[in-house]
């Protein structure tokens, strides 16, 4: 099983990578775990790949509470690094919940954030999918919709984003640094992804040839005692989330000062539960406050024929996550 052949080149520096990638039909290769699957399944057919895996972008720096990560750092190295396990347990557990040991050794942070959807219609040749073949329709909309999104979907696409790491980073207000024709720019991770609307073939706001060079995570020391990544899936390991929740609480004198909640598996991008966050602030982390946050999380959910169970699952996952870190009132 393989797709049409492609040319290969290896970039020795960022500028080189940009020049090599300026040809239409070119794809960047880092860990290769998503790219080669997409190529083998026929979802993409690059005419050339530019290997960026040897660019010096695998750093990990923890300074004054802020974590800076190179986009080419491998998931396994980041997830097991003491600075991460100690200061950002949410990131470490989201990474450990991702894929399998072998894949985590290969996959890079940047590639993980930019992985394409796991929607079966997208990954299976011959099925209707606007992401894969614009204009062919969305097979999942009226078909098998168990995986489909509850939020942010459109009549063109109901696919969900599968990155666990992105859910954790969105909750932490992380920023991404990208390099391209316009030079270096830095913006919040939540602005990386775009909703499908009428053009679901585009997942992100990156321009052609632009690549992620780094990830910056602001100080989260106030959350360290109360953070969790809850991933609900169809089997215990090596499986994308049906629903996941990243939750962070900062509690002082028995009251919630700040709450962060992001859901995975329910939208085309990490879905920040801002209304649930707002309802928690100023209250004790008791059963009533937690139940209110659970209710708020699903308020605007729009299930399809087969994913209605996700509404109750998301509500309960939010409640379980908050119970885990809220402690007994």
């Amino acid at each position, binding site marked *: 099983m393989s797709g049409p052949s492609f040319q*290969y*080149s290896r970039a020795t520096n960022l500028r080189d990578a940009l020049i090599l990638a300026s040809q239409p039909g070119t794809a960047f290769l880092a860990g290769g775990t998503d790219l080669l699957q997409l190529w*083998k399944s026929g979802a993409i057919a690059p005419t050339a790949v530019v290997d960026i895996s040897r660019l010096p972008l695998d750093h990990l720096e923890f300074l004054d509470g802020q974590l800076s990560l190179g986009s080419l750092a491998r998931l396994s190295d980041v997830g097991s690094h003491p600075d991460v396990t100690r200061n950002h347990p949410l990131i470490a557990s989201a990474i450990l919940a991702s*894929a*399998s*040991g*072998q894949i985590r050794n290969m996959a890079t942070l940047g590639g993980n954030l930019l992985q394409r959807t796991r929607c079966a219609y997208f990954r299976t040749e011959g099925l209707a999918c606007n992401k894969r073949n614009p204009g062919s329709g969305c097979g999942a909309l009226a078909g098998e919709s168990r995986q489909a999104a509850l939020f942010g979907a459109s009549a063109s696409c109901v696919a969900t984003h599968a990155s666990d790491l992105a859910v954790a980073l969105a909750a932490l207000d992380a920023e991404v640094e990208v390099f391209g024709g316009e030079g270096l720019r830095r913006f919040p991770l939540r602005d990386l992804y775009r909703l499908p609307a009428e053009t679901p073939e585009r997942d992100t706001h990156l321009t052609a040839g632009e690549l992620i060079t780094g990830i910056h995570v602001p100080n989260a020391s106030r959350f360290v005692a109360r953070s969790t990544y809850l991933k609900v899936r169809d089997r215990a390991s090596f499986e994308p989330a049906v629903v996941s929740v990243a939750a962070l609480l900062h509690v002082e004198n028995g009251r919630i000062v700040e709450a962060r909640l992001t859901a995975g598996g329910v939208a085309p991008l990490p879905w920040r539960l801002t209304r649930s966050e707002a309802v928690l602030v100023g209250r004790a982390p008791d059963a009533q406050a937690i139940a209110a946050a659970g209710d708020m999380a699903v308020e605007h959910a729009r299930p399809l024929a087969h994913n209605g169970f996700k509404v109750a699952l998301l509500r309960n996952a939010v409640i379980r996550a908050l119970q885990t870190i809220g402690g007994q009132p």
Partner: protein
Amino acid sequence: MSPESSVSVSLKINGRDCEFSAPACDTLLDVLRDQVGMTGTKKGCDMGACGACTVLADGRRIKSCLALAASYDGRSITTIEGVGTTDNLHQLQAAFIRHDALQCGYCTPGQILSGLALLDEKPGDLEAIREGMSGNLCRCGAYPNIVAAIAELAGL
């Protein structure tokens, strides 16, 4: 480096230097099996799901079906052919036999390589072994015995 349709790749495979040219889109798995003739590494799903193609790259376990050969130029690869011999099995291979950790044996090379790397990662309990081996499927369902074999060597 300008784009090429064919690439020349140097690998140290099981301690031996190998050089060959291959189509740019060949995976490490294809190269090992078809160019080097080492067929101990298996092609199961060829999509990163089953783990039958697991090898070590500089001591770390990877799925060779998702590894582009050109990208691994210059790296050290360990395959099942580099682990133990018929007369002198690696202790993990011996433990697999003792614990009856296989039936058909198709997934076993990948299980052994993955298990070897997992032992280096020092799993703390049986759950960590089960989680750590989730990237290797066994259609015969020998999972409890695979876990037991690795656990024995991990001292658990």
